[in-house]
């Protein structure tokens, strides 16, 4: 229950913060969902994916197109967004997931680029480079969450749901099998684990989390554009998933907070903002290869 506390504190943020900070808070909460999903692959299956941003984009576009074009109630678009991301991620990702890590990364780069190209150029479906505008606000049973605080609260609720559900997933027998597969595929197989099925399920779950995060993103700026879902986003989410700690959901949440809000606190560095950002990533990996959370835990133990 102690893990509920940060979410309660986060929910109190609107009492002190302005709309701009709430926007950053919403962004961090949305990213954390996709990052936790990516964690199934990076942390628990030992597979690096660079397609998460694209699958997130699939979720965002599915939601955006359903609520604008088909006037679908927003919450009904959630399962559709998840389903679309799972279908694309699993169908196009699973042929490569049985291969070694390097080839899987390569294949996810391909998938990411293909998703972006389709979003950009299949104009009759996606509206192409115009993007999808005038997305109505997120609403639950007709109650609109239009104000920044309300939308922020919705994001915190979603992030908490994603986090606690992921904890259950990791603790389940599937989570156990996945970690076993990541440690040693061969002896997992000779211990009776269905190796391929386990990895495909990890891919499906990670896509599902991306789709859910993308769904929220559609109502974030209430505008979506293909350039929001490029390889850059995938790279950012990948670094968030690995920066905090090896196989630690807590670490992923903290890393998302630190890196997702970096644009704000690195503002004093001006045009060197991203240089500092890259330096933080690099130095952390050099000094704390298992991620910041395990490194901090190690420091405490040594004391």
């Amino acid at each position, binding site marked *: 229950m102690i893990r509920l506390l940060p979410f309660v504190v986060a929910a109190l943020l609107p009492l002190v913060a302005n709309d701009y900070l709430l926007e950053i808070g919403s962004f961090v909460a949305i990213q954390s969902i996709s990052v936790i999903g990516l964690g199934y692959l990076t942390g628990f299956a030992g597979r690096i994916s660079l397609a998460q941003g694209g699958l997130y984009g699939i979720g965002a576009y599915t939601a955006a197109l359903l609520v604008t074009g088909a006037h679908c109630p927003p919450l009904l678009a959630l399962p559709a967004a998840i389903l679309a991301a799972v279908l694309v991620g699993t169908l196009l990702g699973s042929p490569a997931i049985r291969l070694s890590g390097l080839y899987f990364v390569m294949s996810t780069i391909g998938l990411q680029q293909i998703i972006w190209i389709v979003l950009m150029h299949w104009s009759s479906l996606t509206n192409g480079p115009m993007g999808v505008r005038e997305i109505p606000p997120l609403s639950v049973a007709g109650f609109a969450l239009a104000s920044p605080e309300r939308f922020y609260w919705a994001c915190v609720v979603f992030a908490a749901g994603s986090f606690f559900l992921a904890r259950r997933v990791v603790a389940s027998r599937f989570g156990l099998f996945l970690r076993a597969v990541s440690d040693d595929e061969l002896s997992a197989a*000779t*211990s009776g684990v269905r190796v391929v099925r386990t990895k495909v399920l990890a891919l499906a779950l990670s896509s599902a989390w991306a789709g859910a995060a993308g769904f929220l993103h559609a109502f974030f700026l209430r505008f979506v554009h293909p350039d929001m879902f490029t390889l850059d986003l995938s790279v950012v989410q990948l670094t968030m998933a690995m920066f905090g700690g090896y196989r630690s959901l807590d670490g992923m949440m903290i890393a998302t907070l630190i890196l997702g809000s970096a644009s704000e606190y690195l503002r004093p560095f001006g045009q060197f903002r991203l240089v500092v950002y890259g330096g933080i990533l690099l130095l952390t990996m050099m000094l704390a290869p298992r991620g910041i959370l395990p490194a901090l835990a190690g420091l405490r133990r040594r004391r």
Partner: protein
Amino acid sequence: MLAVSDIRLSFRGVRALDGVSLTIGAGETLGIIGPNGSGKSTLFNVISGIYRPDSGSVAFQGRTITGADPRAIVAAGLARTYQNKRLFGSLTVLENVLVPAMRTQPGSFLSDIAGSRSGRDAGEAKAREALAFVGLDDLADTEAASLAYGQQNRLELARALACDPALLLLDEPAAGLSPSERSDMRGLIERIRDRGVAIALVEHDMRVVMQLSSRLVVLDHGVVIAGGTPAEVTENPEVVAAYFGTPIDD
């Protein structure tokens, strides 16, 4: 129970197994000996489905399992250990054994997510039983990678036992152990044998092999050069030339 017939397998033109045939009866302990590189581990890898042989067949309890999925072979009741200790290093000792133990438990991924504990509890009980059998129950929550060498051998054994095998392939279970650990290991294998589990044992320590095996086969350069009771085999001149003529490890 296990019938291996005429297995041939080459790697890049090198014959690793050149027409190996052998059988293991229910409850029997078969020792497989031979110099390094004679094909013992390769044979295990063929039987457990990791390598697909170029020709020949493996039948287990009347069903052909040649080249079947390793997982299906485990499910049929054939488990193994690895000579070079392929444990799940980042998992705890208990979790290592829990992986095979969860295989047959009730419930599913979705019932686990919904919070059902029944499958997990039954699996843990079974895993702890296997750990207690090999004497690792005190270390249940230790990370497997931090175990001492001898403890890793025992964890390998516990993990294989949790697969509920009718036949167990043991690949050098006593390698690298101290004399007292060796005799513990021998005692463990005896107790497994007494439960009625058939065992195929690859081992360099001749004392361990001789005491445990009811029958021996000798492999050399991928060929079975002799077979019989331990006494018969040690008197076979061909074996003496091929095997005892070369220095024995350990």
